[in-house]
């Protein structure tokens, strides 16, 4: 049944998978032995958009991802389509945060608009209406009519209390990932398990990194740090997170992780390193799903995760070369192994 249902999707994903960069190509790009790749769309081939690293993909890259996602979701319907569309929705969250931030700081509409991402056919937020609001109260009233109605009350309280904006950002992110986990669970049998593995890996990664930051960078008490996590982990269950939240130090948390995570994060010194290693794990799981399974929706999601990885890497390589930075330094920043097996100090 799934063969018939996902035949076209499977074929599309397999064709798209040819665009993923392999390690040889990445190293060749890093070392300048080649300067372009067929995997990178022509419009991104000469990414001269400055040397500043913003941590997020900008419009050109997101347009590529959305374009490919639009092709993948075309043959889908129901929960499967909903899940993949929702995956792209996180780029739209950036727009929501930009608008809220802009309204709070009194930026003119034109200035806010410049920082917005074009979501094309996958746009769900009524961006134009939100931009036209004259006050935060009006913005939140308008948000009451969208899928974000559940966070507007919380947002009002936070803003009344003068809470830092990152708390609202975190609430928005929490809302998003809870929704993502819920959509992954709706799908039936084979796809559901594979999707749970990928989505769960992403959520575990975020939960662990957030927990480390909340407890040891912001010094939140355990109860608060735990509450702010996403309630839909995979291998890091609620009970385990509660235990980890009560640990007194970074090293203590790492030492008390489940075995699979302990092996992965052994020796990490900070949350940045932990982030890189956890991302590698997510990519590993996605690669397994993409190359060792067939005829399921999870392959499409796995492709999108890996494609985003490659576009980030390309962006980092181009900007690193423009700095200019040594190839080994770029490798380290990307979490790639050094060719000589050495370490960069």
């Amino acid at each position, binding site marked *: 049944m799934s063969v018939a249902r996902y035949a076209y999707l499977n074929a599309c994903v397999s064709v798209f998978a040819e665009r993923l960069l392999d390690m040889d190509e990445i190293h060749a790009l890093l070392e300048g032995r080649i300067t372009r790749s067929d995997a990178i769309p022509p419009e991104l081939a000469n990414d001269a958009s400055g040397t500043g690293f913003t941590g997020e993909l900008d419009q050109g890259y997101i347009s590529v991802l959305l374009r490919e996602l639009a092709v993948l979701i075309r043959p889908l319907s129901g929960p499967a389509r909903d899940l993949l569309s929702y995956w792209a929705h996180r780029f739209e969250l950036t727009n929501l945060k930009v608008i809220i931030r802009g309204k709070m700081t009194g930026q003119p509409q*034109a200035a806010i608009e410049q920082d917005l991402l074009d979501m094309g056919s996958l746009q769900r937020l009524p961006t134009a209406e939100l931009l*036209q609001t*004259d*006050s935060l*109260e*009006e913005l939140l*009233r308008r948000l009451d009519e969208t899928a974000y109605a*559940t966070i507007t*009350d*919380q947002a009002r*309280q*936070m803003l009344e*209390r003068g*809470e830092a904006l990152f*708390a609202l950002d975190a*609430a928005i992110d929490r809302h998003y990932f809870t929704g993502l986990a819920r959509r992954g669970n709706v799908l039936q049998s084979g796809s559901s398990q594979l999707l749970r593995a990928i989505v769960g890996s992403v959520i575990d990664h975020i939960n662990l990194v957030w927990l480390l930051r909340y407890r040891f960078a912001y010094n*939140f*008490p*355990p*109860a*608060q740090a*735990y*509450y*702010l996590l996403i*309630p839909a982990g995979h291998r890091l269950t*609620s009970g385990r997170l*509660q235990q980890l*939240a*009560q640990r007194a130090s970074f090293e203590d948390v790492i030492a008390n992780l489940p075995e699979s995570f302990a092996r992965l994060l052994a020796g990490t010194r900070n949350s940045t390193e932990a982030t890189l290693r956890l991302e590698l794990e997510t990519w590993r799981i996605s690669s397994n799903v993409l190359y060792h399974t067939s005829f399921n929706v999870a392959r499409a999601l796995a492709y999108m995760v890996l494609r985003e990885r490659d576009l980030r890497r390309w962006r980092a390589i181009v900007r690193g070369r423009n700095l200019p930075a040594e190839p080994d330094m770029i490798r380290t920043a990307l979490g790639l192994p050094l060719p000589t097996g050495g370490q960069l100090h």
Partner: protein
Amino acid sequence: MLRPQRMKRVELILLKDDAPRAALLLADYGSFAPEFTELDSASLPELAGEDYRAAYGEAKTRLDRIVAHFEMATPTERAEPLQAVTEPQLRELGAWLKQIWSRCSEADERMRQMREAHRRTEQLLQGLDRFRHIDIDLTRLHAQHSLLDMRIGTLPAENLQRLEEALRLAGYTAISFFFAEGTTHLIIAGAIGQAGNIERVLQAANWHATVVPEEFHGKPAEVRANLAARMQRLEQQAEEEDRQRRTWGAQPEFHARLLEAAHTLVRAAPYVQLSTLMRGRGELVAVSGWVPDLALERLRHGLQEHLAGRFVQSARNPHADEHLRVPSLLSHRRWLRPFAALVLNYGVPRYDEIDPTIPFAVSFVLMFGMMFGDLGQGAVIALAGVLFRRRLGSYGPLVVGVGASSALFGLLYGSVFGYEGFIPAVWISPLSDPMLMLRVALGWGVGFIVLATLLTIYNRLIEGRLRDALLDSRGVAGLVAYLGLLAGAWKLVAAGHLGIVIPLAVCAGLGAIFEGSWKKGAGSAFTERVLIAVVETYEAVMTYISNTLSFLRLAAFSLNHVALFVAIFALGNMLHNAGYWVTVLLGNIFILVLEGGIVAIQTIRLEYYEGFSRFFSGDGRPFRPLALVNEPGIALQDR
């Protein structure tokens, strides 16, 4: 009549200060479809009106929100006098609207807070009954304890489990005692020393502390009265707020000023639209557009009168290579409007294409009549078209037309509400000679297809596609082959042999089609080219045959119409007097509605598929003139 109106490309150069006024004039004029200027963009590098558009956009969105707030309809009609709106006037208007909207927004926020408070109080009222289930003295909820931190409040139900787990980490416990509309009411308690640790958790969980009234001391009736009074106060406040909103909105000066603001924006809108296409340099701006040839002189006079010569206007005919970009404006009598609308439903004719409205109107009405021929039912349809003309709007003439045609064919068939004895058939009753009906339908189909093919040839010649006009399956070659096949079939049946001329003509036609298809496949492999050419030639023949046979439905439905009546009368004859007449009446209504609808659909299908798809590209540009009110794309004008 048979082609869209002739157009001229007009170039206007004027002073920047006069641009809003000119835009208003052009909008009022109603026959100027703007385009980007043809003048070199290097010599006119500036875009006009950016600040004006920004001011307009802000004012418009605020006005829309204000109008929605007061539940008014946005006025869009033109208002005299037609004075141009300057940018300072727009800004002043925008500032006033901003001020008004600020007050409206505050009022909206107050209403939202009241609704929220009302909702919580309502839940509390419902929850009051649940307090007895928790079996504690409500006084303890007020008391300060030295060791125990106890609180009562609400939070969204989806956050409950998470909060309980988080509170457990801080040594608190939570008791949920009521749930309603996605909100949980609960009591939490823990050691007083941990109170600071849970504040942030409660905030993150969207916790709202419940203000427990003093009366919550074990007097439920008084507590209930107090809550009810609170709700009533909130309702009164909301009503008062709403009353103030309505009073404010109804104030004549305020209402008049809002109306004036709306009219100002209506007058400013044409320049907003036009300025996106204007380019300028210094004090000069230029814009181009399409104007119907017949309306050009009026445009010139209007500009001369209002701009006193402070403009330069030039006009030219469309170039051959821009015929696809010239907009099409269909111009017909009012009674042809519904048919033109059906043509536009398929697509807009290209500028130089034949406008098929008149042939469509004639053929549509005749085909409908032939399939639905009955004097009585036709008269009913025509009468309905007259009586309900207001409700039918522009489709009134179409209904009257098809009704009259049905009545005419009813006379020809001798049928009145299905009875074939009341009046003599001027021609024949369909069931008396079905083969004749089929021959007539076939003949009609042949004529229709020949006409459609001739129109195709004409359209292609106009476009300069000589080769397609001559050698395509829908061109001369196809027509020759088709007519040859028909003549051949006729001669074979009549005389028993084909002769020489007809086969030669057919071969010539098919050969030309084959050759045309062969040439199109240049660059492909030989076998592939042969295969494609053979298949396309075969398809051309089969298409002609199947399209022709498609018209047999004209006869089929005319027979069907009679057959349905036969069935109705058969049913009616089984019943007694009253039952007979009821059956006949209901049967006629059934046929009128159901078969009438089916026949209309079949007629449109024949027109669109056998007709339009042959000669009509339908990808023309509709003529969208600058206008004072927002209207959907106009490609139609009353003569």
